[in-house]
């Protein structure tokens, strides 16, 4: 009896060990299989708009998607399944920047990536360069004219397209029309950034310091993931961190003036020093503690979400220009959808991307419901653009403004090492805005540090 119990225990244990080893073996095999499918050619037949009206029941399967935008509700409410009833969507909400680390670990493990990955513009090149994204060049060929060329430029690596633009952020100046009115400021009089600064001082005096010009912090003013005011201005004057070819241009002498200006604004005491994405910032938007928000169009959607009580008190106008008569166009933000090389359903994944991003019906639906700014040029002439938006004072048709910006903008270029580059810029610039170095030294230091990134 005692002996047989002994043996039973041993058998159970051996089974457990074998299962463990077996699982590891399976994981290993899967990894190899996943590597073999790398760069597999995806073939798709031309889909005509007419074919999409009829439900396509032939295609079936499940595609997994990682997304950090709340628009997923649009996909989940079944609109996609009306056209492709047999394609199941498996959607995982992954916060940016978690999506980045999650992506890297799944890529390194050789398994675990979704079929479709959402990512921000500057990460396309790093991802494509390690072979994690599928080359879409031949598939998107028929869409080249339908999307602005600069958007294709941003998602290309070595002249191959690896992603399709999801949205972009044409920058405008959101302002509180009620506060402007009570401080007797005519928005049309704000032509340059210094006009804007003067208006801020006037508002501050008129409200006895209750209302400040904007939320801007010393660590966020030049932070691409923060307020990014500096980067938006630099873009207007054709400057930035990198140029189109990846050359470092941040030590450009024009940038010195931008930095001096921003420090002056920060030191004047009319900025509310609360970072973006914090409760202090949210409540300031709602209770009128700040009068302006210079930001990409997506901020319009966020204001609706985080400050619903301020309905009817906001308006939008073109950003001020750096110098009188200069460009008033800038862009901040933008995301892309890409297919990963680990995907086993690349054809289905493409169907989804095509439906979501390159179909007029869907993109207009997303624009209307989620303020997702489309990059499909035919959307920009749709009557929906002229429709009034009830969130804004006098039902301003803000989308017309976005079209103006989106048509005339030149993008900010990110270079191949943006995740490290933007943190470096942010760190040194924070030291500068806190008075630890001169603007010239700060830019020189950044340029030196950027040149050592490999």
């Amino acid at each position, binding site marked *: 009896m005692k002996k047989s119990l*002994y043996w039973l*225990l*041993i058998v159970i*244990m051996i089974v*457990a*060990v074998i299962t*463990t080893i077996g699982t*590891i073996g399976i994981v290993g095999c899967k990894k190899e299989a996943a590597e073999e499918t790398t760069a597999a050619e995806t073939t798709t037949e031309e889909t005509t708009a007419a074919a999409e009206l009829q439900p396509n029941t032939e295609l079936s399967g499940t595609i997994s998607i990682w997304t950090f935008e709340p628009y997923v509700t649009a996909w989940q409410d079944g609109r996609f399944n009306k056209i492709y009833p047999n394609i199941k969507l498996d959607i995982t909400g992954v916060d940016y*920047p978690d999506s*980045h*680390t999650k992506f*890297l*670990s799944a*890529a*390194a493990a050789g398994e675990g990536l979704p079929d479709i990955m959402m990512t921000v513009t500057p990460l396309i090149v*790093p991802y494509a*360069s*390690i*072979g*994690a994204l599928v080359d879409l060049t031949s598939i998107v060929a028929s869409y080249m004219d339908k999307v602005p060329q600069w958007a294709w430029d941003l998602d290309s690596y070595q002249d191959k397209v690896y992603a399709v633009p999801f949205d972009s952020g044409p920058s405008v100046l959101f302002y509180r029309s009620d506060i402007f009115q009570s401080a007797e400021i005519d928005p049309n009089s704000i032509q340059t950034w210094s006009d804007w600064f003067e208006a801020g001082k006037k508002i501050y005096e008129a409200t006895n310091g209750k209302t400040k010009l904007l939320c801007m*912090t*010393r*660590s966020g003013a030049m932070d691409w993931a923060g307020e990014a005011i500096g980067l938006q201005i630099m873009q207007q004057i054709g400057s930035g961190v990198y140029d189109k070819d990846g050359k470092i241009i941040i030590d450009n002498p024009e940038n010195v003036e931008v930095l001096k200006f921003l420090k002056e604004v920060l030191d004047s005491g009319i900025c*509310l*020093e*609360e*970072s973006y994405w*914090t*409760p*202090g910032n949210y*409540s*300031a938007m709602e209770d009128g503690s700040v009068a302006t928000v210079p930001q990409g169009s997506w901020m319009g959607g966020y204001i609706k979400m985080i400050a619903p009580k301020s309905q009817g008190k906001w308006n939008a106008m073109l950003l001020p220009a750096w110098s009188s008569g200069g460009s008033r166009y800038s862009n901040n933000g933008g995301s892309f959808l890409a297919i990963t090389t680990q995907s086993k359903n690349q054809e289905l994944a493409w169907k989804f991307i095509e439906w979501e991003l390159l179909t007029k019906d869907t993109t207009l639906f997303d624009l209307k419901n989620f303020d997702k700014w489309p990059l499909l040029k035919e959307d920009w002439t749709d009557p929906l653009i002229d429709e009034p938006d009830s969130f804004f004072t006098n039902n301003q048709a803000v989308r017309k403004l976005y079209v103006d910006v989106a048509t005339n903008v030149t993008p900010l270029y990110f270079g191949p*090492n943006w*995740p*490290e580059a933007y*943190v470096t810029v*942010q*760190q*040194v610039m*924070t*030291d500068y805005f*806190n008075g*630890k170095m001169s603007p010239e030294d700060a830019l020189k230091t950044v340029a030196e540090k950027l040149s050592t990134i490999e």
Partner: protein
Amino acid sequence: MLKKFNKYKYAYLFISPFYILFAIFGIYPIIYSLYLSFNSFKGMGPITFVGFKNYINLFSDTVFFAAIKNTLYIWIIYISLVLIFAIILASIFNLGYIKLKGLFRTIYFIPIVTSTVAVSLVFLIIFQNERGLLNFILSKINISNINWLNSYEWSKPAIIITMLWRWTGYNIILILAGLQSINEDLYEAARIDGASTFNIFFKITLPLLRPMITFCAVVGTIDVFQQFTEPYILTQGGPGVATTTLGLYLYNVAFKYSKLGYGSSMAYIITFFVLLASIVQIRLLNRE
């Protein structure tokens, strides 16, 4: 040898699952990261051998040195404060006449079972600059706004406060266990000999608590050197690099900049520091 093995073969068999799992999830990654630390690897694609380049680069990396400085700053202040608080509070709990001991102990222990992320998010609200709870309370006693999260001087204290809130309770329980293991007879004898409370505490309680204090200090040290969540959520390592700790920088390098080779070499250096710091503490606290 073999005879001995045969004698215990079933015992070895029974304890083997742990060692098998440890080999796969413990030893293998440790060795693999040693291998990676001599290579350049972006997460996918080729692994190229670079020799000692990663280690050499580390010594000219200004952010890395800033991270060491920040970690040491947080380490020294946090460890001293957490031990002082824990010893004082545990001594109070240990007093015979305190009622509702169980309730107090539970309340003090609760922070440790809450998620660090949730805690940090709550502290993010408390530490807001112009509309934060803490600054509001301070303004009532005429202390003007402290820019907790965005200033060079106050961002590190903000992180230390968050850590103290979270870890003091845990240390109280450990110290309390230490206190209760001290033989009552010693106190009685001391009292009969006419020793003051002050003398009893410094001559009996503290020396006998030494092993427990050492344990708390070493565990705390390891926590500080791997510290990541609080700065990640509260300050993202800012302003500048003022709150970039070794753990946070390691995370950034390996998982944000995807330099896994460089990150591995940094991990080895950090391990070396932890080892060094632990040895120093054990020596200092356990010397006779």
